[in-house]
């Protein structure tokens, strides 16, 4: 019992010691000439040693006291205690001994010390980590900010610590050997006592005890002897064949009442166009990534980097993500309103207009007609006007559907989705309509447009989709409406005002830049609120992630939503603007956000919705291939690019020649091309999965179903 009390105390001590340790080390790296930091480190070194010595001493003393008490007690009393606790075999032996009246050996064991020593070792090992952190603190401070010195010191300390631990184990063993000698004597006495004993009461008691110990279960107490039978139809798809599965089997889509064929067809067309644009758009992106590695891949004006870059970004924005989002909206908005979609025809018109915009826009950009340089604003206004009409039609359709709802409240997903469309129309009008933008005012509008394009269209809309799909796939209501409400309004307030953080230190009004930076910090509120809301919905249901082929996509989207948004806040600060602005860090950030959050969420939505519409599921192992290629590709793409961009920014700050920073990036650009290739391959797999889910290819007939069809015909 005493032992159990000690463990938490030891753990608590370890925590107390190690926590400030780490904090101290971190600050120490930054502030080199901090003598207070040095003293704290020395104290941190001393505390674990004192704790260690103290626990050793207590342990030793406890053992001694126990041993003394033991020796002082009446030995005979011990023997009776032992006899009461003999096990089956020992009793058997005892009875044998008594019945044959011949001599034998009895064994006994008290097994407590072993545990204790192992706990001690555990504690020692864990504290040795502390030593490793600690000992170099005593060195000169300017010294151990050098990684080489730190590694050397740690390497030197490790064997010394292992030696100390080894010595402690040895001394503890020596102590035990000494105590065991005493016990051995007692064991001999006990054996002699058993042999001499003529007490029949004890014998009777032990015989009885053996009978109870001999009792075993038949394993049929509950089930009885009858054969198992499923009389209430719980089991389905029973198969006696056992095959080896190379991949984990995931749950199949739950069958839902199918949608009307006309709306089903519309949604599938939205999806089909989106998949087409995804493959085309990312194929172009892949080619652009290769151009960084091999700039002379071609010398054709229509395929030059400057013209093709906006073609890639605009296709994935409008062609892939926007069409996929609106398509999913046509599924989610009516379902959570419990109403039919207001007008299917408007959906078809909007689809045609958006596709036209992407085709025309791409051709314009490749032939050199663009809007003059604002990111995402490269399409000229006559082209963008097509999308504006499409958005207005979609908005009218969704609002009318919500107005027809049969539920009292408007589900949270519909606040986000419908508001996203309203805001995007306002954003597009502000950025495109006014012909007045001259000089710097163009840049103010540009910051607002590109940021709201991301935050008010893609993020807000996708959040709306997640508010439907995550609870639906987990089969559990969303954790908190109130968090959703807070995230909704704070997102509007903060996201709208932060566009200028793309132009920190540019010749824009300083108050506007300050507002943008403050707003970027404010974004922590909606981001944390939404993340908590989603993760708390996941809580207790995490096991469902491993048995579902859709939930991993949503989980990635939620995790990246948190990471990328907080990263965005960090990037908006003034100092980080020095390092990261103008570098590929922004490119990596954009891909983390657009791919990690938006695209993963949309894929999850596709894999949920399409099987419901067509009744066909994707090959599960290919969904796995798609997921992992995309995920690993994204990491390969973004991590090296962020690292390289950081080094590049630091180089610029040092005032190194520009061309050196280009040479520095070569390896990182190569990694980006490799990651991009993995991502592109995953899209081909995804396109194949989409084909499998929607194709009308001839399927193997279900013999049972066909047989009953024949029977039915015969009956008629």
């Amino acid at each position: 019992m005493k032992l159990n009390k000690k463990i938490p105390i030891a753990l608590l001590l370890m925590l107390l010691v190690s926590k400030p340790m780490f904090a101290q080390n971190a600050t120490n790296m930054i502030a080199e000439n901090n003598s207070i930091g040095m003293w704290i480190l020395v104290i941190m070194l001393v505390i674990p040693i004192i704790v260690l010595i103290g626990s050793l001493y207590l342990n030793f003393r406890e053992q001694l006291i126990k041993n003394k008490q033991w020796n002082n007690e009446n030995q005979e009393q011990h023997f009776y205690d032992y006899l009461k606790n003999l096990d089956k075999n020992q009793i058997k032996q005892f009875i044998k001994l008594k019945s044959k009246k011949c001599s034998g050996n009895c064994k006994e064991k008290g097994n407590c010390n072993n545990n204790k020593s192992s706990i001690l070792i555990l504690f020692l090992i864990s504290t040795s980590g502390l030593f490793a952190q600690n000992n170099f603190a005593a060195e000169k401070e300017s010294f151990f900010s050098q990684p080489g010195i730190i590694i050397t010191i740690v390497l030197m300390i490790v064997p010394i610590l292992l030696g100390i631990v080894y010595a402690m184990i040895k001394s503890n063993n020596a102590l035990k050997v000494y105590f065991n000698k005493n016990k051995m004597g007692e064991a001999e006495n006990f054996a002699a006592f058993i042999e001499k004993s003529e007490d029949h009461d004890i014998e009777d008691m032990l015989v009885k005890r053996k009978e109870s110990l001999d009792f075993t279960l038949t394993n049929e107490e509950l089930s009885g002897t009858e054969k198992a039978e499923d009389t209430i139809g719980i089991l389905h798809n029973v198969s006696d064949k056992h095959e080896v599965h190379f991949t984990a089997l995931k749950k199949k889509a739950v069958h839902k009442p199918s949608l009307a064929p006309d709306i089903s067809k519309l949604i599938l067309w939205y999806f089909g166009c989106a998949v087409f644009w995804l493959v085309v758009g990312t194929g172009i992106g892949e080619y652009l990534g290769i151009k960084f590695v091999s700039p002379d891949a071609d010398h054709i004006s229509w395929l030059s980097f400057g013209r093709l870059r906006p073609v890639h970004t605009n296709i994935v924005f409008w062609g892939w993500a926007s069409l996929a989002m609106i398509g999913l909206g046509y599924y989610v908005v009516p379902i959570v309103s419990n109403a039919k979609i207001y007008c299917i025809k408007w959906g078809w018109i909007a689809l045609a207009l958006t596709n036209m915009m992407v085709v025309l826009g791409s051709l314009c950009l490749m032939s050199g007609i663009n809007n003059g340089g604002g990111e995402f604003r490269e399409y000229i206004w006559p082209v963008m006007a097509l999308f504006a009409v499409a958005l207005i039609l979609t908005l009218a359709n969704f609002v009318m559907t919500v107005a027809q709802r049969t539920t009292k409240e408007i589900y949270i997903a519909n606040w986000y989705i419908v508001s996203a469309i309203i805001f995007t129309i306002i954003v597009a009008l502000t950025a495109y309509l006014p012909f007045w933008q001259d000089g710097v005012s163009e840049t103010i509008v540009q910051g607002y447009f590109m940021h709201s394009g991301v935050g008010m269209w893609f993020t807000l809309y996708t959040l709306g989709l997640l508010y439907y799909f995550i609870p639906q796939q987990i089969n559990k209501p969303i954790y908190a409406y109130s968090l959703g409400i807070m995230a909704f309004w704070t997102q509007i307030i903060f996201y709208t005002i932060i566009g200028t953080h793309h132009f920190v230190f540019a010749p824009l009004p300083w108050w506007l830049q300050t507002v943008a930076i403050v707003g970027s910090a404010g974004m922590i509120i909606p981001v944390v609120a939404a993340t908590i809301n989603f993760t708390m919905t996941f809580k207790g249901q995490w096991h469902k992630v491993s048995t579902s082929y859709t939930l991993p996509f949503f989980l990635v989207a939620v995790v990246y939503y948190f990471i990328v948004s907080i990263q965005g806040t960090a990037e908006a600060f003034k100092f980080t603007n020095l390092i990261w602005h103008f570098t590929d860090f922004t490119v990596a950030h954009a891909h983390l956000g657009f791919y990690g959050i938006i695209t993963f969420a949309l894929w999850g939505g596709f894999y949920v919705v399409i099987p419901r519409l067509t009744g066909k599921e994707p090959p599960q192992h290919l969904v796995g291939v798609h997921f992992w290629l995309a995920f690993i590709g994204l990491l390969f793409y973004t991590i090296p690019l962020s690292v390289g961009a950081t080094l590049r920014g630091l180089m610029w700050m040092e005032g190194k020649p520009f061309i050196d920073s280009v040479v520095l990036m070569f390896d990182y650009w190569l990694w980006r091309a490799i990651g991009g290739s993995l991502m592109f391959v995953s899209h081909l797999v995804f396109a194949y999965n989409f084909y499998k889910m929607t194709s009308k290819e001839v399927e193997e007939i279900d013999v049972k179903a066909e047989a009953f069809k024949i029977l039915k015909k015969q009956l008629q």
Partner: protein
Amino acid sequence: MNIFNDHKRLYLTAGALFTFLTYIVVIMPAFENQYNNLPLPGTVPLSGDAKAGKLIYIAEGCVGCHSQQVRNVEMDKMFGSRPGMASDYANIGRTSIWQNTATLMGTERTGPDLTDVGNRQPSKDWNLMHLFHPRSVVPQSIMPSYQWLFEIKENPSKTDVVVSMPAEFLNGKTGKVVAKKEALQLIAYLQSLKQTPLPDGTKPLDFLYKKPVTKDSGKGSSVGTVDGEALYAANCMSCHQANGEGLKGSFPSLKGSKVVTGENLELYVDIIMNGYDARADYGVMAAVGTNMNFTENEVAAIINYERSAWGNTGKKVTPEEIKKIMDFVKIKASASN
């Protein structure tokens, strides 16, 4: 809560809030800046060719990799002598009825900032070669080559602008590379990109985040704090190359050059500060030193680097003696103008 059960109220409130915020942070400041900023008095309007060149700059999407803004931070000092201001962009209007205003500030610097490139790299010969095949002058460059702005002619006429391009960059084609009108227009635009000087007596904005001043820089005359090699890389290498050998037919070699290793320091400093156009077999060198506002420390560092690199041997110079020559050649240059 009632608002969440009433779609009209919910969406109208959200839309109104968003519109209000849009007005505060976009429309209002945009109007204010548009009407409260005038171009600087010294602003030179774009010439006809430069205007056409700007349209090509826009069409080719150069802004995807090249920014045009000098931020008020120390690290941007290499791209301009003063931080940019709203007035610098005040004379930029809408491009056309179809196209938006192009301030071309940009958000990415895969390549260098071009705000002041007209001062930094004014050489027409270099720009033509660079546009036709960037790697012919900057081997490490990853810029696309804009070969569709050029044509290959067997017998160029006298009015054609011929680019002397080594055969290895012609992809096996034979003939002379001739710049089309578009290439010349684009270069006219690039050459026009110069920071407008502030009116006399106006103090420019400070560059923020200055590098911490090291203790020994206070001594003034020590050349050790100025890195001649880095200055060479930033200002000279694009023409004279990293190996100092230049490019045959375009840019002379500095390796073993008589100007570099010889005794005539005055000519040497004059070339660095005021450019050179004395030899028909090479392109014109621009007034790099004057354009970049080199100090005597910087000129001395460059000279000392060039005199010790690539096997060159020459006497070391001190900033003090360079200072005297610089003052002299400055008077000479202004007199000859």
